[in-house]
């Protein structure tokens, strides 16, 4: 059993061997991974120590205090939050060795090839085809809403390998080399004017069978692990009181007394209360998790979070009045990462519209709450026993 002292000793040893001030960043990240201090709940030899995840903060704090470099969680968020846990759960020992170290040390950036133009909320309807050809699979299709595809070396990819069985059964999961011939990435411009996301066209891309994750036909099960980790990541974010989108508006309120009206005041206070309430919900959620009894509240947090962001960013524009009529810049650009609070009020307002769509629409999440938490009858599944190829589309 790893103890706090144990971890502190290991951190001290790492820092002694690789002093942050004189060690190149990449070397330090490599050394940290090899010392098992990358993600301590991972197995030994794969950047971890088989230690309780709750102790990770001990390592992070010690290293931060020593001024050690860290990987950029925003740049490699999809790799860390979605690809890594799935590779760990379903990967072969060879895949573990090949992929996890460069993923964590930021040598390789990952993206996610899940959604398609014809498969959004109904992800299991996806139609990107993978056909076996010797030791390879040949993949053809179109993916969409891929953030960071233009900067990624690898992707987690779900494909259709058997169109003759019902949709959930005929899928297979792959690790796809984004530099392979046949992968074409095009920016997908959003209502904000910029392109955070991409469309990815796959034309006869060859993927070796060694890069299949999980069994043939088990792709849905593997994808569920990825999506579960995505929801944990969304619901578990910690934010301070008076922070987030509400914090942006309160700052304007404090700095610009000339903009205040009594009607906006009460609405702002309402949103502040909702933000504080959501902070407490999310804090309670983490306490439940730490106590070993994770609650089903994550979906509710996500729904509430997107509504709050939308309401607060809308209020900011109203508060700004005349300035709210202007937008900073419609020029098509490629932002570095996702930042809901970035740029100016108009951007925040428009970007927040995506919050209730990305990572599960609020409507689908409400179905999930109603069915899985409240036990209400499921929506009729008319496509359950129909071969994928026979589904209306």
């Amino acid at each position, binding site marked *: 059993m790893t103890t706090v002292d144990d971890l502190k000793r290991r951190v001290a040893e790492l820092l002694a061997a690789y002093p942050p001030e004189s060690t190149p960043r990449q070397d330090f990240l490599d050394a940290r991974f090899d010392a098992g201090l990358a993600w301590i709940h991972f197995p030994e030899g794969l950047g971890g120590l088989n230690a309780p995840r709750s102790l990770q903060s001990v390592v992070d704090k010690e290293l931060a205090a020593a001024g050690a470099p860290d990987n950029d969680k925003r740049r490699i968020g999809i790799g860390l939050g979605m690809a890594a846990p799935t590779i760990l759960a379903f990967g072969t020992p060879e895949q573990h060795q090949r992929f996890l170290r460069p993923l964590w040390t930021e040598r390789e950036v990952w993206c996610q090839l899940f959604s398609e133009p014809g498969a959004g909320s109904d992800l299991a309807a996806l139609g990107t085809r993978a056909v076996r050809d010797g030791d390879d699979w040949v993949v053809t299709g179109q993916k969409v809403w891929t953030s960071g595809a233009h900067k990624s070396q690898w992707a987690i990819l779900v494909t259709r390998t058997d169109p003759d069985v019902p949709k959930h059964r005929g899928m297979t999961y792959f690790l796809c080399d984004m530099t392979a011939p046949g992968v074409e990435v095009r920016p997908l411009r959003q209502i904000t004017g910029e392109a955070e996301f991409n469309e990815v066209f796959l034309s006869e891309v060859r993927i070796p069978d060694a890069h299949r994750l999980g069994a043939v036909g088990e792709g849905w099960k593997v994808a569920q692990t990825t999506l579960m980790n995505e929801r944990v990541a969304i619901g578990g974010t910690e934010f301070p009181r008076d922070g987030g989108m509400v914090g942006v508006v309160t700052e304007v309120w404090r700095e610009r007394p000339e903009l205040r009206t009594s009607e906006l005041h009460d609405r702002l206070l309402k949103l502040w209360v909702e933000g504080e309430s959501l902070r407490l919900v999310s804090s309670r959620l983490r306490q439940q998790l730490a106590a070993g009894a994770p609650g089903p509240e994550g979906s509710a947090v996500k729904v509430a979070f997107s509504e709050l962001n939308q309401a607060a960013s809308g209020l900011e524009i109203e508060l700004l009045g005349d300035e709210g009529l202007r937008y900073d810049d419609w020029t098509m650009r490629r932002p570095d990462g996702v930042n809901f609070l970035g740029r100016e009020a108009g951007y925040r307002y428009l970007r927040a519209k995506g919050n209730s769509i990305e990572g599960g629409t609020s409507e689908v999440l409400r179905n999930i709450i109603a069915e899985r938490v*409240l036990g209400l009858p499921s929506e009729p599944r008319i496509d359950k026993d129909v071969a994928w190829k026979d589904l209306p589309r």
Partner: protein
Amino acid sequence: MSDLLYSEVEEDLRASVRDLFKDRAEPAALIARTETAEPYDLKLWRTLAADLGAAGLAVPEALGGHGASAREVAVVMEELGRSVAPVPYLGSAVLATSALLATDTAQAEMTERLGKLAAGTLIGALAVPLSTAPGAEFPSTVTAAADGTLSGQVRSVVDASVAELLVVPAVGPDGPGLYTVDTASAGVTVTEAVSLDLTRRIADVTLENVAAKRVADSSTAASALDTALVTAAGLLASEQLGIAEWALTETVRYLKERYQFGRQVGSFQSLKHRLANLYTDLVNARATARYAADCLASGDDIAIAVAVAQARNSPIAVHAAEEAIQLHGGIGMTWEHPAHLYLKRAKSDEIALGTPGRHRAALAPLIDLPA
């Protein structure tokens, strides 16, 4: 960091209180009782207060209580919200008891009084209108004469019609004071009003030259009164959570049972989404109520925690009760179905101890958001 979960002890307490209300406060009996001469169930009160010890939870052991805290009282309040049991818990165990606990408890007779309140053998009430918000101006409708007798009127006092002891804020020649009055004393008239809330009544109290004992003078009266109001407002958020929880649970249950158009009503997506929204509200109500209870117990961040919990939970409870009525359809509109008891409680609670708007206004200076 505040503990927002329930401890095992708290869960045990909840189980006992819930069992008691399940046995002794079932909906049909509650509805029948509302139109009798005894709208309060004082036998149930004695079991709750004395046998389960719920009235003395936050009273120190040295004063005859159980030495627990607001966290445990909050659990009882949740169950009260869930059952709308007709007992004078808010008036006696919360308002009157908190007010006296905030005075000098070493003074004569106080140990005995608090001991009896804690044991549930004495029922108290705090003589302020139930709508009084924390931070309100000290009430001046009752005056104390030079001889210490009280005269005046206080409207809408919660649980006063069954109270034996009134804690009365009054203004005398030396300024504000808190006084205790036995309701049996000459010159006390308590007239029960026709209350919107059928299971928790308000009454108008008239005092005419009534003998009283001053328990807090001008140096402490206002702060003792405010402590009582803040404590009660914070705990009321837990009752509101209980109301919302009842409304959601019952509505989900009914919509699974009820068939129309050849299918379970709960299978219609528009209704499922409304229930999912109630669930989201409930998750929020629980977090703010637990935080307020924990802050009242620890003494940290009380003002913000209570204002947030009240501003958030009041409308949630009202909305949940309103949705329960609508989603039950016709049956929800009948006198026979208990949903109306919860709507009446929720709407009264929204006004009680400060409306959501007042709590938001109180919050503004605390969080540096001036008008």
